[in-house]
């Protein structure tokens, strides 16, 4: 394990930001810290980097107890949401900074910086100031700067959070490819579940200062440990007292089965290839999503009476939110 976080707690005044958090982050993987705003993700990342001190608990990086080490000695690369560029230095010198601190020979610095700028596709911008770059370019510069010192772990705090949706999508795919090339243990914070599901090898869900679940994107999506994770990772709807994903529901117009719930379609919305049907049962409004073809083959319209049921072999949580079933991940 590359990063071991053991029983870390952190308060800001009376406010508990992290409450007895334990996480193991495997070497060489891309791990996402996912959770709602204010959940404590940045705090945890900053504690790993040594930018914040835990009130209690320990942090180990590559087997070395880093709990009492200052950020300078931890050899972590940190990338901030708002770039944290050295505004008065050129792109080249920004990237060179860590190497200059380490007093590497000039020639070595030059060739290493050129190599990194090529890696992040900024070769032609070496002499510009950060203010002359776009947000995405600035963030790639920040990434090159962090990678320059060959960090043991790379920590990214919502690296694409300040960018527009399209650039964000491009950059996260690019980050995935970069990671497959560089293979440095990487932890990145996001509150965008799609980003985490798409990019990460492993996801740590953090909410209100606690770890809700740790697992692969598939685990989390298919076997959420609790309602919170289920709700956070994707759309949900309620059928009877079960919490399910709208695309895990089926509709048919045949004779009602004992497991079926009868309802009337009250609204049909089309979003690209996806059809979203709102079905009003005797006591609920249930949302079902299905593909266009499935929908057309049903031959129904608003006002039709249909049967709804959960597709076989689908996990569904209890909508009453039974907290005792939370997997306390360690």
């Amino acid at each position: 394990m590359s990063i071991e976080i053991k029983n870390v707690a952190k308060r800001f005044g009376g406010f508990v930001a992290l409450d007895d958090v334990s996480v193991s982050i495997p070497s060489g993987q891309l791990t996402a810290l996912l959770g709602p705003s204010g959940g404590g993700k940045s705090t945890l990342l900053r504690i790993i980097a040594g930018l914040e001190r835990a009130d209690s608990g320990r942090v180990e990086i590559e087997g070395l107890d880093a709990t009492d080490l200052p950020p300078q000695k931890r050899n972590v690369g940190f990338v901030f949401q708002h770039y944290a560029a050295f505004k008065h230095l050129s792109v080249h010198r920004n990237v060179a900074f860590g190497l200059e601190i380490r007093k590497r020979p000039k020639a070595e610095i030059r060739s290493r910086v050129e190599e990194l700028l090529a890696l992040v596709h900024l070769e032609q911008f070496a002499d510009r100031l950060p203010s002359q770059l776009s947000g995405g370019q600035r963030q790639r510069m920040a990434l090159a700067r962090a990678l320059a010192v060959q960090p043991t772990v790379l920590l990214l705090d919502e690296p694409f959070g300040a960018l527009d949706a399209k650039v964000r999508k491009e950059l996260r795919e690019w980050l995935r490819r970069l990671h497959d090339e560089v293979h440095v243990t990487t932890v990145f914070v996001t509150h965008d579940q799609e980003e985490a599901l798409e990019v990460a090898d492993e996801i740590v869900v953090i909410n209100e200062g606690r770890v809700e679940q740790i697992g692969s994107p598939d685990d989390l999506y298919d076997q959420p440990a609790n309602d919170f994770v289920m709700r956070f990772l994707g759309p949900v709807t309620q059928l009877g007292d079960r919490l399910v994903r709208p695309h895990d529901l089926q509709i048919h117009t045949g004779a009602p089965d004992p497991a079926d719930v009868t309802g009337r379609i009250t609204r049909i919305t089309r979003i690209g290839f996806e059809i979203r049907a709102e079905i009003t049962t005797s006591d609920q409004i249930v949302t079902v999503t299905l593909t266009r073809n499935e929908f057309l083959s049903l031959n129904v319209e608003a006002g039709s009476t249909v049967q709804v049921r959960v597709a076989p072999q689908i996990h569904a949580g209890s909508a009453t939110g039974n907290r005792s079933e939370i997997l306390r991940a360690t």
Partner: protein
Amino acid sequence: MLWFSLLVLIPLTAVIVTASGNGWVEFWRAVTNEQTAAAIQLTVGTAFLVTLVNIVMGTMIAWVLVRDERFFGKRALEVLIDIPFALPTIVAGLVLLSLYGPDSPLGVNIANTRVAVFLAFLFVTLPFVVRTVQPVLTELDREAEEAAASLGASRFTIFRRIILPSLTPAIAAGAALSFARGVSEYGSLVLLSGNLPMRTEVTSVRILSSIENDNLESAAAVAAVLLAISFVVIVAVDVIQRRVVRRG
């Protein structure tokens, strides 16, 4: 541009025209007059020294005001800093005289010495660097400092390579203001310095006495020299500032 001309260029030209009214020789005689030269030397030298002190102290005070969270006299200091701005200079002079004059309650008598000139300059120029640096320091990107720290930079290196280059333009602006203010200071020092020719007489006093003696050309000549010096200093400050920023 017109506005600038009316406000600045025309009076400046007038000074230079008056200064050269009696020809080059007279101009030269006026500024090399022993007493005048001594006054210029004292004024410029002291203003220079005071500016250096302000660069260091002003930056430190601004630092404490912005960064030191526990410093508890902060509010009081905030108010105190502006007193030299708020006080009419002659009142400042009076305060200095009663504090450091012959009847000093502190037992410190610096009346009629060059120290008095230094102190008066220091008093009136104190706020400049503090007030120019403070807002810049408040706006500084703390995360850039954290980034530097995780890249291995020590606190000192972070200050020198990340913080200082960002502050330098503000420090330079404050230093230029402080120098200019020092050179032109009159009110706060006339009472305490005694205006002794060759010893504690500053140029503003010298100019005034020239005018009182109906020697307008001589006064303008001194003013023109001060103008030239201030200009050189401001340009020099700018050059140094750019260099510090670029070196990072």
